């Protein structure tokens, strides 16, 4: 799943070294257009539905946080 997520992220922002970054949102590395793309693709790829309450920077600042969110939503579904 991690590889799939990183591929998805790199397709959207090939310039970012996702595994090294720890503040993707807080440092403004990802902009609002990236977020739309990333959330849409995460919903599609992992068959989840990210809700408004989950749209918090801490869920998207790192690859690990995004994986945790995906796991949580898949298990809840």
């Amino acid at each position, binding site marked *: 799943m991690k590889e799939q997520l990183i591929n998805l992220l790199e397709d959207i922002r090939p310039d970012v070294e996702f595994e090294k970054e720890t503040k993707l949102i807080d440092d403004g590395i990802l902009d609002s257009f990236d977020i739309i793309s990333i959330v*849409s693709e995460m919903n599609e790829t992992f068959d989840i539905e990210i809700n408004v309450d989950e749209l918090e920077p801490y869920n998207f600042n790192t690859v690990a946080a995004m994986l945790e969110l995906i796991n949580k939503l898949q298990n809840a579904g």
Partner: protein
Amino acid sequence: MKRIESVAEYKELVATAKKSGYSLSNCFFFPTAIQQKVDQGILLALKIQNGLLILEDMVDFYRCYYYLSNDSLPEVVTLDKPAVVEFPFNGAMTPKQLVQVEKIYAMGFNLGRESSQMTLDVQALTLETLLPVAYELSFAQEADADAILEMLNKTFDKLYAFIPSKEELCRILKECHIWVLKDNGSIAALLHASQQKDYATIEHLVVAEQYRGQRLAAYLLQNYHNYYRDSVRAFCHWVDIHNKPAVKLYSTFGYNFGIKKANEYIKR
């Protein structure tokens, strides 16, 4: 249509929409972004049949976000100014994305612009001598702001392109690079570039109508490549895939289409 007054109200609207089964969405704001837009008074909500629209008031048009029913079509919406839905996707659209597009059409939007990223690795760049041009190349200064804005407004449709305010442009002139080619003081062509991490990108490339056909865009592109080639890994630009001169220009320099695409659906 109702102005959204707080983040709590926004969340309540979205929660109600979700409860109604409106699960198809392109509306993914973080709370800070919602708060910012609420403070600016630019976030509006419009309840429609089988959906909820969140509209961002961009003065001349609305940027449109939605929560729509997966099962039923929304109604045709009537707005007091043009609106645009930005729809990014990778490669070909998935069946789910195609369902969303069907619903965007049902609201009365039509396909406006189809964009794709074109990229070029620095390693694939061949160093060429700059083409000779008869005009003076320099970095734009604050005194050029009005002329730049006039060119951008003449060339681009606000629905599709980022056209900064004068204040934003003056900030951009301090932080980024806008090269201009001047003919006796008036701007014949400009290239606005920026760098994100180790990628360089072009925000605007414009040649004034009376100066077209003189390869000024190619000259500015060469200059831009030479400027960034030692500090980036690649060049990466959004291009309207139907803008044949632009696609031809980038292809000549070795750019290829990437998988990242975006459609803009518009309602006039």
